[in-house]
């Protein structure tokens, strides 16, 4: 090993030794008099190793500082020095200095560390006597070192057993012997190093032996000698956990290769799928199908599985615990508390949560900023806290955990919280928001204004935070690595900042879009929705020079990728309306991109571009697609900054008041896509599906005219779509999917010959209503016109007998109600009106909450019930409910909130606002039942 190698090795090792020292010193400080021997020894040993190696390599300054720090630590360990904030401060400074010196190892000898050394010496000198004895001790015993050198193998066992006999002698022993090693004159360096390392080993083993012995002692006091000898023997065995240091470059290369393997696998799977389809066709024609393809299938499946596992394992090697970042915060909080005159305690949770190395590194700065922010703006001074009835010392909790394949980090403080009204007025002052928009803005959104560019709320600009360039940069940096950040706050109680991070950066779920003859990848994290224009609610308009997309009452800047990317290969100006639109959001900017085609969604492996191309603003990198061709990954932030310049003038002059930053209501329905043949596509709302089963087609039996299936010990009635709905033909594959749903207390299965996908689809508009039995409407989903099935209608037609029975029961209590329906989606509005009118209710429907409120306020006695969607433009369902409840006239008015997804949080929010019941839009029976019970209840109250 030559000199530079040795030096690199030293740096790597020293980094490891010093990695946790900050935390450890702080722990030592916190424990004060109650010194934890193990902990102090760990730090001592780390510094000792650095000192030894530095001396060996002739790094005099590192050697000098570490030598003194070691002595101070020795004094702490010998209980001759009680750790207090002052001396720990000096120790921390020394540790910092050592880290600095190691990072610039080449110039370390030229640095001047006299002042620091003097401060360390001063701590030492406070009790001179003990130091003198330590020095004396290292005078003798040169002969012993030679023994270690010659019989190094035996010394381990010997030293270990020695420690068992006299534990108190051990620490000074090891220190003594290492000092001796350095003093051997004329020995070759190699020998010295060997002895050093042997000694280190021995010291480690000593500790282990001691630890084991102590635990053994505690366990059984009767057989002390027996158990201790046993543990000594065990201690000499090699360490069970073996690790190896691998260069990041090697891992990156491995990662790349695994990515390639994934691509090859994808290609293979495609080829095999193609082949087996052909085979199937041949089999259908009566040709004897070879089982070769069947074999291939199995092999491919095996390869598929191994590849996936391999990729996961390699990804695992890049994973690092988030604790690597968290560990630096105790120190920051300690220093901040002092400089801000506050008492702040930090609690970290989930240090062990792992994420990609790149992400761990990238999150450090944003986290530091957020923590500083919590301390500066969040936690109050002790006086303020006590006055507010809180404990004088504030707490900041830093918590990491996994959720839904993502890593979540929360920064929670119990400080003053954020005042949404102050933020609003501040935003108006700074011109970020106009008064109208501010009035419309909910508290939750207002609190997130802190992430707007050029925002700083600190009354006094401090050096800790409040330079006004912080939070938007934090947000941008987090979004750069595919994450997101959000803040919630309770005034007077504290705030929570929640960061969402991806597990890995190497593989990015993306949408592949086509522009001309080229394909580009667009990371899914930036995509808000795909839009098909319909000329009415969604259409492209021209404003001055720029094009905009009108989308549900909002105007979004529109950029044509063909123009911005410049495609010289095909200059033909294609039909401007023949395009698909992708709405993307990046930072505070939301805009639409026109592409020729949306092709596919794919998990892509990011490949860096060469240095000539790495700084192009529109590109975030490249990837290799399934066919082996390279595709560029688009950088939405880069594109956004490009169009900001282009559309600024247009949107400001021509569209005053029409811009609503970021606020677009979404009605996303999760749909199951299925088909009976390649010409007949259907979709079913996932909300009403209980589960989906794959079964062999021959398990379906006919009970009379009707199909059914033996299932979990009972008979499951089945419905075939073609019983009710007109289809061109029905495929009969060997395996079918059964979509199980409940209707009027019965489980029913819908036979689905082909199941394609489960996707989130925006049904707010673009759905045509048709009056076919069992069909709610037609929409374009995934570029295919798809019929949306109304499972209840379908069942009613297919099995009318079921409804006769329940129908007669219900008739006695059936009441007709006058209902006001607020729903922005044309499709759902029509669907609800029709469905409820069929049941004998009188329906008035409006498009948003504002109109709903006008209607209700003008005709307060015309309605028995309000039914409202939650997500709507202008005035959403929650605000509408609040407004209604605030008005004395409507105390008794039942309110049903409709939602596509009734998660607990929004349900709770709705109930708090005064909603009586929550219902899923497509779940007709439950909805009808809810109407009946609420109307009945209202009648009772009125009558009473």
């Amino acid at each position, binding site marked *: 090993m030559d000199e530079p190698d040795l030096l690199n090795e030293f740096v790597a090792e020293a980094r490891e030794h010093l990695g946790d020292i900050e935390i450890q010193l702080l722990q030592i400080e916190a424990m004060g008099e109650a010194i934890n021997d193990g902990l102090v020894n760990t730090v001592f040993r780390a510094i000792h190793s650095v000192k030894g190696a530095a001396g060996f390599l002739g790094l005099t300054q590192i050697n000098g500082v570490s030598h003194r720090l070691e002595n101070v630590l020795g004094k702490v360990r010998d209980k001759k020095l009680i750790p207090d904030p002052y001396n720990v401060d000096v120790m921390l400074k020394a540790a910092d200095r050592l880290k600095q010196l190691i990072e610039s190892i080449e110039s370390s000898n030229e640095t001047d560390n006299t002042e620091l050394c003097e401060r360390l010496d001063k701590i030492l000198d406070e009790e001179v006597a003990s130091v003198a004895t330590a020095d004396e001790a290292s005078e003798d015993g040169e002969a012993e070192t030679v023994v270690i050198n010659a019989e190094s193998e035996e010394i381990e066992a010997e030293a270990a057993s020695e420690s068992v006999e006299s534990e108190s002698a051990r620490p000074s022993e090891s220190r003594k012997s290492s000092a001796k090693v350095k003093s051997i004159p004329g020995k070759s360096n190699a020998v010295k190093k060997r002895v050093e390392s042997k000694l280190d080993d021995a010291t480690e083993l000593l500790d282990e032996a001691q630890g084991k012995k102590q635990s053994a002692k505690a366990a059984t006091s009767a057989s002390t000698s027996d158990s201790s000898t046993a543990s000594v023997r065990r201690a000499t065995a090699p360490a069970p956990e073996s690790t190896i240091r691998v260069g990041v470059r090697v891992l990156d290369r491995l990662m790349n*290769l695994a990515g390639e393997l994934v691509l090859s696998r994808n290609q293979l799977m495609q080829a095999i799928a193609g082949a087996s389809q052909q085979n199937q066709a041949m089999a259908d024609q009566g040709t004897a199908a070879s089982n070769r393809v069947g074999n291939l299938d199995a092999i491919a499946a095996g390869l598929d599985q191994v590849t996936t596992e391999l990729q996961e394992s390699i990804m695992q090697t890049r994973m690092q615990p988030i604790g690597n970042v968290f560990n630096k915060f105790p120190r920051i909080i300690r220093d901040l508390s002092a400089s801000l005159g506050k008492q702040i305690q930090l609690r970290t949770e989930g240090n062990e949560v792992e994420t990609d190395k790149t992400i761990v590194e990238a999150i450090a700065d944003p986290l530091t900023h957020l923590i500083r922010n919590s301390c500066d703006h969040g936690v109050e001074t002790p006086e303020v806290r006590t006055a507010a009835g809180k404990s004088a010392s504030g707490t900041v909790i830093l918590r990491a955990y996994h959720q839904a394949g993502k890593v979540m980090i929360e920064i929670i403080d119990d400080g003053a919280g954020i005042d949404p009204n102050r933020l609003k007025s501040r935003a108006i002052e700074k011109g970020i928001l106009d008064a109208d928009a501010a009035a419309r803005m909910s508290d939750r959104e207002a609190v997130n204004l802190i992430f707007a560019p050029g925002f700083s709320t600190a009354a006094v600009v401090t050096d800790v935070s409040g330079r006004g360039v912080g939070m938007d940069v934090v947000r941008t940096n987090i979004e750069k690595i595919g994450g997101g950040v959000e803040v919630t706050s309770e005034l007077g109680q504290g705030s929570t900042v929640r960061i969402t991070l991806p597990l890995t950066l190497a593989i990015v779920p993306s949408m592949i879009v086509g522009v001309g003859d080229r394909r580009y990848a667009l990371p899914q994290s930036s995509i808000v929705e795909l839009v098909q224009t319909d000329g009415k609610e969604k259409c492209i308009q021209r404003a001055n020079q720029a094009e905009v997309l009108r989308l549900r009452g909002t105007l979004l800047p529109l950029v044509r990728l063909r123009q911005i990317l*410049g495609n010289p290969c095909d200059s033909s100006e294609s039909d401007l309306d023949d395009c698909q639109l992708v709405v993307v959001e990046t930072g505070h900017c939301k805009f639409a991109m026109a592409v020729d085609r949306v092709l596919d969604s794919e998990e892509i492996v990011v*490949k*860096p571009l060469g240095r000539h191309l790495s700084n*192009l603003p*529109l590109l975030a990198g490249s990837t290799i697609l399934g066919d082996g061709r390279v595709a560029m990954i688009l950088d939405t932030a880069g594109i956004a900054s490009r169009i900001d310049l282009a559309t600024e003038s247009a949107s400001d002059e021509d569209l005053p008041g029409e811009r609503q930053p970021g606020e677009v209501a979404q009605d996303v329905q999760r749909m199951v896509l299925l088909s009976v043949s390649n010409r007949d596509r259907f979709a079913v709302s996932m909300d009403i599906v209980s589960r989906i089963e794959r079964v062999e087609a021959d398990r379906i039996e006919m009970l009379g005219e009707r199909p059914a299936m033996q299932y979990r010990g009972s008979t499951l009635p089945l419905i075939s779509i073609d019983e009710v709905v007109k289809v061109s033909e029905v495929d009969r594959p060997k395996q079918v999917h059964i979509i199980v749903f409940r209707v009027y207390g019965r489980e029913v299965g819908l036979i689905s010959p082909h199941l394609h996908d489960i996707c989130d689809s925006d049904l707010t508009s673009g759905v045509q209503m048709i009056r076919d039995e069992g069909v709610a409407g037609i929409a374009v989903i995934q570029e295919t016109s798809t019929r949306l099935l109304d499972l209840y209608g379908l069942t009613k037609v297919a099995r009318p007998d079921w409804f006769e029975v329940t129908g007669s029961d219900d008739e006695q209590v059936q009441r007709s109600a006058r209902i006001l329906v607020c729903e922005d989606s044309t499709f759902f509005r029509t669907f609800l009106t029709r469905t409820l009118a069929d049941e004998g209710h009188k329906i008035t429907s409006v498009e948003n909450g504002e109109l709903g409120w006008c209607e209700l306020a003008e005709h307060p006695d015309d309605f028995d019930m309000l039914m409202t969607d939650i997500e709507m433009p202008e005035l959403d369902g929650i605000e509408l409910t609040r407004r209604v409840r605030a008005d004395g006239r409507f105390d008794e008015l039942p309110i049903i909130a409709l939602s596509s997804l009734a998660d607990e949080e929004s349900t709770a929010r709705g109930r708090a606002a005064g909603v009586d019941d929550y219902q899923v839009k497509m779940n007709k029976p439950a909805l009808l039942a809810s109407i009946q019970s609420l109307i009945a209840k209202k009648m009772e109250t009125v009558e009473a």
Partner: protein
Amino acid sequence: MSATKTLPTESADPSLADNASIQLVTFRVHDVMLAIDIEHVQEINRLMDVTPVPEASSMIHGVVNLRGDVVTVINPHRVFDLPEDGDRSAGRNLILNIRGERIGVLVDSVSDILTVSRDELSARPQNVRAIDRRFIQSVYLRSEDLVVVLDPVGLVDTIND
């Protein structure tokens, strides 16, 4: 699929490995005969599917997939301001290794590998008009023509500016 020809990194003939001689890969760009020290050449490939890069320098032809790595390909016609040949059938992608990064050079044809003595190379004569002097390392005078030996590092760095 692209046929890959991996070049020997060390000469089999020990007499050629000494410092006195140098091996040059010669190739043609339009009508200019050029050469690059074999030390910098990793491999020679047939032309592959090139993906153009929006907003990149015009000297950059695009990127290709080289066994899973995305490699930038330079168009020397644009660098040297030479007309492009219509027929690319004999074209090759010369993959260079410059400071650890692989970079392709789109050439019209690859001729052969010359072993020449360093004494035979003359430093940048005035009479080379076709190629900017910045890219020239030296010139080799053959009996019938003149081969311009390129400085690949200079070539690659120039594009950055």
